[in-house]
């Protein structure tokens, strides 16, 4: 009530300024006239009465000012004046203003951009009703954790029976589906869900209806699907008659019954669920079969996740106790994990949370550098304004008042920088989103300028203002009146110079951390890119094929494969063509149980083997030498005796050497599916899935010996004479010509595939380098600013020295030497700081230690060189001082 009255009075006062002034004027004039009239009535002559009335009233101007202050208008008046003055000051020194605005824009922009991503991926709750009641229930073990937890329908029923804990429980299975809409096939993200999905989340459709219990497939319901708003707009132009439209999903017919709201993306952060269908529980009825299907439950309001975990854990133990092998239980069902699902589930989060946190730390340091730099520049500039400030103090301005004015200037600078910074940030973080790896499906998320982002940006700006504005303002407000009184030239107190120097040194120290970190990340990226993978990656193209859910089955697939091998092989510039199921770095891993007769397994690793089904010429495509024996070739057809080529590591482990392996046998699988292979060749080791870890043991098995045609993703691999990137279009059009409906996912160069694996590393290295460059630029600007102002201050001193016979070059060296001392001091502190802080990078580095001496020295050298470069102009200016002019100045 009171606050409201104050706000109302302040609002009225500030909006109806002239009206309020007029009222105040009228009121006081009325008072004076009434008083005069009263006095006249008492017999005082009019002229005397008027004077008395005024005298009794007191200073009208003063009372008016007090009246304005009472309404909170004084501050507003002052603010207006300060802002006008700030604008004028800025216009007078455009160089400083531009430097300050640009560096704040970069600092705030970088912070807002990274925060935008972090918010999107790590902080923001999913757009459903009461997201904080949602929990994600998974089983974890040695091999599974977080979003990859397993479940099945009987276990789900078990969990759902706990109506004391949950108001509702659902099962969700995410997948990529081949969706055909009016004859056009595309690959879309989708999910199969229990029919309570939408009611549990509290999401209503924008069109049509969502699922009801009767939609459940096991009850013989006709298959229905709900589609996303995006898909509706894209493929149906938002037309309302989409309801009832038939589509096919993985070759099965569905009818569209509803459309989800535009902001709804599902609970998997980073991807939009374009098609949502009811899950068929009969597929997951077998209690011994577990699949990656999150169980999402809505807790009752008075239940918390911890309590749920305590209840679920013994339930899981009981459930897994029967019919499940000890090993499986140990690997996947050891414990129950209950995590909040308020922020959705995300594989991207798992992959990017540590790089993003790191980037946030880096941009934080960058903003700190920006602040220190600006503080330094302001201190230096206020030296030049000392006279002006002293004059203000002499005229009666309080120190608070002077500080307020200087802080207003800082705030205006910060605001001018922040606005373009935030605009830039939104654009650039969306650019980053576009570059996120699309391994699982097209990433669809966007950073928008909503209140979360704007609040962050505003807080960052306010913090920045205080951080860079406070020290200089406080310093300047301590100005003495002496210079004005004594009419001396502006002199700077030693203390003030010290503050300026300390700020530049601090800026150097902080910059070292950023630069050293960036160099570490860059070198890691280079090290990784240069890792010897063991095969030729420069001349290979990979054609990714996924026949699942298409008409390419059995014989048709086999014919297609044969056709393609011949057709691609006869293209100009193509050297060799082959195909394989687990091409290096393509993500498909195929492990099999392994038994080697005569060799006792030492540990669990000895009983599994990574296999790759390869066609003839595979080793030629990748330039893999056969160390012993022969490669897999045309001889190895269906019906011939099973053979294998193994990697050197395999031969070493089980037979003690490549030579000894030839002619030996091993067995994959067990019982009915067991196959015995004879080793006919040994090839070189390669890095297979991870550039960072040494080669694994591998067995290459002949593609065309496989008993069944595999209906799994595979790749054609093609080696070319020239740069393979140039052959991509040729190969695409050849496939298009042969089989327009071929289920080709992508045609990529092997280098591209490997680089895709380095996304996080590249992101960190690129952004880190960018931030380091900004820090270096700021270091140069800061040094230059300080020296320029110090130089101006020393003109008289240099003049005297020159007049006494010093050589101009000595003056130049003096400036350089002093600055070098500053740079070296800052660097040493920075190196100490870097050794401590850069340890956080340890897990991300490759072939380097965070405290790598060469690296730190390198960073220090870069900074010192930058500082020297920034010294040149001020140093030459010092050398060119004319002693006569300088002395006259004194």
């Amino acid at each position, binding site marked *: *009530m*009171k606050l*409201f*009255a*104050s706000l109302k*009075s*302040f609002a009225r006062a500030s909006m109806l300024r002239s009206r309020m002034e007029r*009222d*105040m004027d*009228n*009121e*006081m004039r*009325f*008072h004076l*006239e*009434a*008083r005069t*009239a009263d006095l006249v009535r008492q017999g005082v002559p009019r002229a005397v009465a008027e004077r008395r009335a005024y005298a*009794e*009233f*007191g*200073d*009208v101007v*003063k*009372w*008016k000012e*007090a*009246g304005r*202050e*009472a*309404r*909170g208008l004084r501050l507003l008046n002052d603010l207006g004046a300060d802002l006008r003055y700030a604008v004028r000051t800025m216009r007078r020194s455009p160089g400083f203003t531009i430097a300050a605005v640009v560096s704040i824009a970069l600092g705030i922009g970088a912070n807002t951009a990274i925060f935008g991503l972090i918010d999107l991926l790590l902080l923001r709750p999913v757009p459903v009703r009461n997201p904080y009641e949602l929990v994600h229930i998974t089983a974890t073990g040695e091999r599974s954790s977080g979003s990859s937890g397993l479940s099945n329908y009987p276990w789900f029923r078990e969990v759902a029976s706990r109506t004391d804990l949950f108001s509702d429980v659902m099962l969700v299975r995410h997948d990529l589906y081949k969706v055909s809409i009016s004859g056009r096939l595309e690959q879309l993200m989708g999910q199969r869900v229990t029919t309570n999905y939408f009611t549990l989340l509290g999401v209503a459709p924008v069109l049509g209806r969502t699922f009801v219990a009767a939609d459940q497939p096991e009850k013989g319901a006709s298959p229905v699907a709900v589609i996303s708003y995006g898909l509706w707009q894209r493929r149906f132009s938002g037309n309302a008659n989409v309801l009832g439209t038939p589509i096919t999903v993985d070759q099965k017919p569905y009818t569209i019954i509803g459309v989800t709201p535009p902001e709804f993306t599902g609970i998997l952060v980073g991807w939009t669920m374009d098609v949502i269908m009811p899950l068929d529980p009969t597929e997951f009825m077998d209690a011994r079969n577990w699949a990656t299907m999150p169980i999402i439950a809505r807790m009752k309001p008075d239940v918390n996740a911890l309590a749920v975990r305590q209840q679920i854990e013994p339930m899981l133990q009981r459930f897994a106790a029967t019919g499940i092998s000890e090993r499986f239980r140990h690997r996947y069902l050891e414990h129950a994990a209950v995590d909040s699902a308020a922020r959705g589930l995300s594989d991207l989060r798992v992959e990017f949370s540590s790089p993003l946190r790191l980037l946030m730390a880096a941009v934080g340091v960058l903003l700190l550098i920006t602040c220190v730099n600006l503080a330094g520049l302001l201190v230096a500039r206020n030296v030049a304004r000392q006279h002006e400030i002293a004059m203000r103090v002499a005229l009666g301005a309080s120190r608070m008042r002077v500080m307020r004015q200087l802080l207003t200037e800082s705030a205006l600078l910060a605001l001018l920088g922040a606005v373009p910074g935030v605009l830039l940030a939104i654009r650039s973080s969306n650019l980053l989103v576009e570059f996120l790896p699309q391994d699982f499906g097209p990433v669809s998320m966007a950073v928008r300028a909503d209140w979360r982002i704007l609040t962050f940006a505003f807080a960052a700006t306010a913090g920045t203002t205080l951080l860079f504005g406070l020290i200089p303002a406080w310093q300047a407000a301590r100005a003495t009146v002496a210079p004005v009184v004594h009419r001396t030239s502006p002199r700077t107190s030693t203390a003030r110079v010290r503050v300026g120097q300390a700020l530049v040194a601090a800026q150097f120290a902080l910059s070292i951390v950023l630069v050293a970190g960036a160099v570490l990340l860059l070198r890691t990226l280079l090290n990784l890119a240069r890792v010897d993978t063991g095969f030729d990656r420069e001349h290979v193209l990979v054609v990714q094929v996924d026949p699942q859910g298409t008409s390419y089955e059995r014989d048709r697939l086999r014919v297609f494969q044969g056709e393609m091998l011949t057709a691609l092989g006869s293209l100009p510039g193509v050297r060799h063509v082959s195909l394989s199921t687990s091409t290096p770095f393509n993500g498909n891993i195929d492990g099999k149980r392994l038994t080697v007769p005569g060799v006792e397994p030492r540990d669990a690793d000895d009983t599994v083997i990574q296999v790759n089904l390869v066609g003839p010429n595979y080793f030629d495509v990748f330039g893999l030498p056969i160390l012993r024996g022969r490669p897999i070739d045309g001889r190895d057809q269906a019906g011939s005796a099973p053979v294998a080529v193994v990697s050197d590591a395999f031969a070493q482990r089980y037979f003690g050497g490549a030579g000894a392996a030839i002619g030996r046998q091993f067995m994959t699988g067990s019982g009915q599916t067991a196959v015995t292979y004879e080793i006919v060749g040994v090839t070189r080791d390669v890095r297979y899935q991870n550039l960072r870890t040494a080669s694994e043991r591998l067995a290459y098995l002949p593609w065309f010996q496989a008993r069944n045609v595999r209906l799994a993703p595979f790749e054609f691999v093609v080696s070319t004479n020239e740069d393979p990137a140039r052959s991509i279009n040729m190969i695409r059009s050849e496939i298009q010509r042969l089989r327009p409906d071929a289920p080709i996912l992508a045609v990529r160069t092997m280098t591209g595939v490997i680089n895709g694996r380095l996304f996080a590393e590249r992101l960190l290295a690129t952004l880190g380098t960018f931030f380091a460059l900004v820090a270096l630029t700021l270091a140069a600007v800061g040094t230059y600013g300080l020296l320029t102002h110090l130089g101006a201050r020393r003109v008289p001193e240099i003049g005297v020295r020159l007049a006494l016979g010093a050589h101009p070059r000595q003056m130049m060296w003096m400036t350089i030497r002093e600055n070098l001392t500053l740079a070296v001091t800052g660097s040493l502190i920075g190196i100490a700081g870097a050794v401590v802080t850069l340890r956080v990078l340890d897990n991300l580095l490759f072939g380097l230690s965070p405290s790598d001496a060469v690296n730190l020295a390198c960073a220090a050298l870069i900074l010192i060189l930058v500082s020297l470069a920034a010294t040149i102009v001020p140093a030459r200016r010092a050398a060119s001082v004319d002693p006569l002019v300088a002395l006259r100045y004194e």
Partner: protein
Amino acid sequence: MGKNTELLQGTLDLLILKAISLGPLHGYGVLLRLQQISNDTLQIPQGSLYPALYRLEHQGLVTFEWGESENKRQAKYYSLTAAGRKRLREETNYWQRLSGAIGLVLDAAPGDV
């Protein structure tokens, strides 16, 4: 004039509230009423009434409307709001307790202790 008493810090607001509580007044009227009921013993810097009135208005304790004065001029008439009446009660209580207590202390004779 010699008997005039200077105002204690912070009491002007209370006096204004009291004066207005007896009926809507314009600024000059407040002055006259205060002088009248204090028998001209209170010396109030006349101009200081206005910042005080604006402060009370800002705090939502008084409100105003324009009206016609005795000499047919437009004047701003202040009156108490509900919050103002409440504040006046509180302040009056407080003031009476305080002045009573101070009076007791000052009246204390040597024998009382």
